[in-house]
């Protein structure tokens, strides 16, 4: 009963309390290492990325081309049917101009990042990636873009085999 409670529990600590050592803290750095199996769908997807291609799975139950590919359709809840190549072009569905890096540290040169729906896949199906060869003033939702692939010798079978998506020439 917030109106009738005179005092709410909780002792607030500020940075000085920690620095001065009046408050006891115990420090620990976890060490955990992982080797993930990429799985059936992603193993093929990553292998195709290394070849400079994007691939999807077709589901005949709902007539969708599922991208990124998966071995089962979450809509029909049945196995998907076939591998289908899709294009490396698409449309920016949304984006952000980020002044924060992964650890929420401030950066001065913003990262352009967003979601691209991929041509050849069903509507709105796409992937997150970076954008390049455009400024923060050029980028907009609906912009047509194309993958900028790394040189074949530099590809490793990773989403990073695409360096970024850039404006589509003549698109």
């Amino acid at each position, binding site marked *: 009963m917030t109106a009738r409670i005179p005092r709410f529990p909780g002792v607030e600590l500020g940075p000085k309390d920690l620095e001065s050592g009046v408050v006891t803290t115990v420090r620990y750095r976890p060490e955990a290492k992982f080797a993930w199996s990429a799985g059936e769908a992603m193993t093929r997807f990553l292998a195709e990325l290394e070849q400079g291609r994007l691939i999807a799975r077709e589901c005949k139950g709902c007539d969708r081309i599922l991208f990124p590919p998966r071995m089962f359709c979450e809509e029909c809840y049945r196995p998907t049917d076939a591998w289908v190549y899709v294009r490396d072009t698409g449309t920016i569905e*949304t*984006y952000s101009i980020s002044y924060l890096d992964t650890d929420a540290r401030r950066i001065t040169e913003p990262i352009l990042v967003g979601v691209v729906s991929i041509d050849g896949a069903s509507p709105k199906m796409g992937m997150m990636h970076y954008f390049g060869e455009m400024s923060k003033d050029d980028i907009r939702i609906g912009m047509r873009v194309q993958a900028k692939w790394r040189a074949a010798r530099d590809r490793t079978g990773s989403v990073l085999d695409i360096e970024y998506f850039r404006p589509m020439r003549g698109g």
Partner: protein
Amino acid sequence: MRKVAVVGAGMTLFRRRLQETGKELSFEAARMALDQARMEIGDVDAVIHGTAPDAFDGVHMKGEYLLDGSGGRRKPYMRVFTGGGTGVFSAIAGYWHVASGLADVALVVNEEKMSSCQPHPQSVFAYIWDPILDRPLRPNLVWIFAMEMNRYMTVHGIPYEDIARVAVKNKRNAVGHPCAQLPDANITLEDVMNSEMMAWPVRRLDISPPSDGAAAVVLASEDVVRKRRLKDQAAWIKGVGWCIDSTMWTDRDLVFPEYVNRAAKMAYAQAKIDRPRKQIDFAEPYDPFDYKELHHLEGLGLAEKGKAGLMTREGITERDGALPVCPSGGLLGVGNPIAATLGIKIGELYWQLTGQAGKRQIPHEVHTGVTQAWGDLMQYGCVVVMGT
């Protein structure tokens, strides 16, 4: 199903860093809720504990780790975790224990201690992403909210100031909350609109702060309410709903939270609500970012698609407006200790409906309120309707 009431609630301060451990915070909040319900731990049949990622604390089995603090020892006990949705979902789990008849009294305790994680809890959010598709891009959690906000703003043509007004309203509402971390009676629209750009279109004051805190509610069956003469301090749970969408978030249009809408329809069907805007008097939607309050009002059917910003601009969602929204001060004003937001969501509905909200009390009579929380990769929604 049996009728279930909230008969007591408690919460600690919400602060960037508190000295108490998670167990100690859980105990403080649960003890306060039991005292208000005039009960002892022996009166409790089952305990439900809500808490978010284990990585914040660096302790797996977090539910077990915290159970002594939340009163779960030697009782039917479970920990629930639905990301940010835990703040409301744990009360739904408590509800089904009592509604089913398996328990007459259930104690729901939610705790979060984000400050343990150094240097910033943001670092461990990196581990929510798909390890193969997303993680190589080293995404920051704010990015995806920025992407959702951009999609929502741009498709509907919503001006940024209509979104920023939500932050102003909630931080001002929080002035009346005794546990609030970021209340600000003098904050202006310009303050929010000129605050540091984090990830366009999200600025610093569009975001709720990470916090430590705990909250608890006591749920009781109709029999218990009658026998213990708790009717004057009871608020009834009228409907519950929850829904999750695919984790493949790059395959969905982020403009509308379909999963919130489905959860709302489930709760409204049980509560016999078919015209939410007319039948619901106030709302406590989840507001970790200012645009989320608007997005969720639309998902809850309390605003037409793309129109929630206009309602905010017109003052409809102010505490004395026709549809008060986040009269608690919300996550933006009171703080965002993820699961512990139970205290400003379910807790606020309880305090408002029983006339105990003090300085935050909605000035006109209210009989029905709705609350909602949201979590995971922009995919999870849960909704609770409560009434007098």
